[in-house]
């Protein structure tokens, strides 16, 4: 770790500051984190422009901004993962130069990454230990890690299976592992890059309680999220980024959701129109007593039956890890069905995703990096995955690249993927823009059924509004839609019917209008309400 001048970097002050306090903090009066005129280029892309940011210790500081605004890049610079082209980082008033994340960790900075940094073949314990083993032999280190993780789980109510390779866990649980991993390392400055995108409301509450506690103990928290309600609920101050620059700082108490939204996009966000629901038609997707097992033979979905009719949206709510992901994958033909049948428009479908596509079923996977996109591909290659036989993209063995490219550009523009450059490598798009690219590929392809998992994961406000509009208009055009999301508001907003899954079973199906949040909460907890009808009338 190099510091200039030569003194070692002092620890952040631990004196607790009342949250929301105006005074800039720490023993020597310096803020816990200060970024001065930070600039970062990725080739032609100016990802951060002369960013100034100052975060007081003992506070929760929110950062908001549209997809591609440069939030992740900025935090990766603070975490030593990227190096700024220009500018300065000061920790507790002392200038520091981070050559790598190891240096940042040594300065007690921790980060929860938007794109999980997990080794999929490792268990939660091994992932938490990695880089913080404490001793050359794993035996004692593993026992220590297990104890500490168990404590953290109890203290913060974040349950995860400890001995299953994390690659086999659904995204919601992976998110918890990523959070536990950061808490395990016990940083003084903790950066959270969209930690709540696939958590259920109760888990989000739990996480915010943790953040409050940590801030109360003098830790400094930086929180990135697209959900402005979370900013209002959890932060003391908020900074707004737009196209790489920080355009405003506010005290959370002095601002409103609509002001932040306007600062973010530079225009007013109109409330989403609910559209005119059409009368549902015939059933397009029938699930008949389906049971799904995971790779180790454990049943994840038990004897589930329901149907989705043309012109309706059925939402599946539930705490992550209750079989929603497995059900969605089975419906998409990615996972074999152990028993039971799946009918598309009345015809039985085999477990094969190509078969589904032929039948007009499109699928937006929950995890864009794992099963949606190929990171090293150019955007136009990622944008035709699975649809490369489309005659628009060329005949016979030949792919017509100019046609692919211009088609992709059109899709990117419609879905507001920025930059709308079909030649950009997929990995170089920001998280939200990757999500939009995947939606752009799938959504229009659904001629009968659209299966969507976490559709707006990591997408900014304007994008969410647009995507919801699209999904509604597809519904109005008579498609059948099944929506799995950790975001209850999204489910209530979009769905005509809400089903709740707990322990691999459907606990109930209620019309969205009647679906009071409290009832859903009970159902999610596995309480079956007798007055809730099990199947749609």
């Amino acid at each position, binding site marked *: 770790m190099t510091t200039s001048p030569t003194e070692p970097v002092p620890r952040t002050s631990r004196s607790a500051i009342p949250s929301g306090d105006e005074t800039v903090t720490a023993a020597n009066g310096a803020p816990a984190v200060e970024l001065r005129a930070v600039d970062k280029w*990725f080739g032609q892309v100016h990802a951060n422009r002369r960013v100034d940011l100052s975060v007081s210790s003992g506070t929760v500081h929110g950062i908001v901004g549209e997809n591609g605004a440069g939030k992740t890049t900025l935090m990766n610079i603070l975490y030593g993962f990227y190096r700024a082209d220009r500018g300065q980082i000061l920790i507790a008033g002392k200038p520091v130069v981070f050559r790598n994340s190891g240096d940042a960790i040594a300065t007690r900075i921790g980060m929860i990454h938007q794109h999980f940094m997990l080794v999929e073949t*490792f268990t939660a314990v091994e992932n938490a*230990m990695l*880089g913080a083993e404490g001793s050359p032999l794993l035996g004692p280190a593993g026992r220590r890690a297990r104890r500490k993780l168990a404590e953290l789980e109890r203290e913060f109510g974040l349950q995860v299976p400890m001995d299953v390779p994390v690659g086999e866990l659904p995204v919601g649980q992976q998110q918890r592992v990523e959070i536990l991993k950061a808490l395990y390392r016990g940083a003084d400055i903790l950066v959270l890059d969209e930690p709540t995108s696939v958590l259920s409301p109760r888990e989000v509450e739990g996480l915010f309680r943790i953040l409050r506690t940590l801030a109360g103990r003098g830790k400094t928290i930086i929180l990135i999220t697209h959900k402005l309600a979370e900013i209002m609920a959890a932060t003391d101050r908020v900074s707004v980024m737009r196209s790489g620059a920080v355009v405003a700082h506010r005290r959370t108490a002095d601002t409103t959701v609509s002001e932040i939204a306007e600062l973010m996009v530079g225009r007013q966000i109109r409330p989403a129109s609910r559209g005119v629901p059409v009368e549902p038609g015939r059933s397009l997707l029938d699930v008949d007593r389906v049971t799904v097992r995971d790779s180790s033979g454990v049943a994840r979905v038990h004897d589930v039956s329901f149907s989705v009719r043309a012109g309706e949206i059925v939402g599946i709510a539930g705490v992550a890890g209750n079989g929603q992901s497995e059900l969605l994958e089975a419906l998409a033909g990615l996972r074999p069905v152990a028993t039971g049948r799946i009918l598309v428009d009345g015809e039985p479908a085999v477990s094969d995703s190509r078969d589904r596509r032929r039948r007009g079923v499109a699928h937006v996977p929950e995890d864009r990096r794992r099963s949606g996109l190929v990171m090293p591909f150019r955007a136009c290659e990622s944008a035709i995955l699975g649809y490369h036989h489309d005659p628009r993209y060329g005949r016979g063995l030949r792919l017509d690249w100019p046609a692919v490219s211009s088609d992709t550009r059109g899709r990117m523009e419609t879905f507001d993927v920025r930059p709308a450059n079909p030649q950009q490598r997929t990995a170089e798009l920001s998280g939200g823009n990757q999500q939009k690219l995947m939606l752009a590929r799938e959504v229009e392809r659904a001629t009968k059924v659209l299966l969507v998992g976490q559709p707006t994961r990591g997408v900014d406000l304007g994008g969410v509004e647009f995507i919801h509009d699209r999904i509604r208009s597809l519904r109005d055009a008579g498609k059948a839609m099944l929506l799995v999301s950790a975001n209850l508001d999204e489910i209530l907003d979009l769905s005509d019917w809400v089903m709740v899954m707990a322990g691999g079973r459907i606990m109930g199906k209620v019309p969205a209008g009647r679906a009071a949040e409290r009832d859903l909460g009970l159902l999610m907890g596995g309480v079956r309400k007798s007055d809730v009808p099990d199947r749609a009338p």
Partner: protein
Amino acid sequence: MEILLAAVVVLDSTLRLATPLILAALAGLFSERSGIIDIGLEGKMLGAAFAAGCVAAVTGSAWVGLTAAIAASVLLALLHGYACITHRGNQVVSGLAINILVSGLTAFLAVAWFAQGGRTPQLPDSARFLSMEWPGADVLDAVPIVGVVYGELLSGHNVIVYLTWLAVPAVALALYRTRFGLRLRAVGENPFAVDTAGVSVSGVRYRALVCAGVLCGLAGAYLALAQSAGFLRDMTAGKGYIALAALIFGNWRPVPAMLACLLFGCLDAVSIRLQGASLPGLGEVPVQLVQALPYVLTVVLLAGFVGRGVAPKAIGVPYTKEG
């Protein structure tokens, strides 16, 4: 009794023939688990054999020869690392380049220095690793079965064979029970996770390559100082590739990889026994056919069974974090 004796003889030579394969496969395990493809096992082994042959011939000491072998092999491993880790070069190309370079260079230098047609001088026994008889082998000889197993199978190998027996559990322990092993496995699966955990990706990978170098050094020294009495031109004869196949066949795990090596060694031993033998109904087995057996089996096994193997996810991909 006849059959037992024949079996023991075959098993005994299986152990001898499998030793360099096991060492090379373990070497490959280190590099490939860290995410670096290691086609260059062959070249590292050959370079090590040459260094061992030269230095043992000059100094008259097998141990100094062994040290030189390890040094040469580690240097080649570092060269591979410099090309693939530091400069993010193509790992297959770099490995092949090392194999071709070493094959040509050793033959050339051997001719230039020793003028014996591409070999190093015949080593006296004092400059080789000889088989070590375990105490009591001659006494137990009279006891049926136990005597043969003890005297022929367990006793009577050279020090590198015994080192290899130790190396397999040692590597397994290192891989699954130590901090280094954890980081090594992680870096081959997801280097980003290692980097953001504050651990240097290049550091772990270089260390893995050094381990690979040491093991290939042992393998090369075994060829030149134990199995033969000096270096012979291209004496590795594809063993590096077979070891790589065994590694893949063993799913990048130490014990299964060792078993695969023993299988290849056994085939080799059988094929040596079969040479000149005549089988009922077939007549004399053609030598070429017998010698081809291990290679045919490699292809069959790799084609037929390895489909389910799961390679380290990040293997072959140079680590870069910015576009």
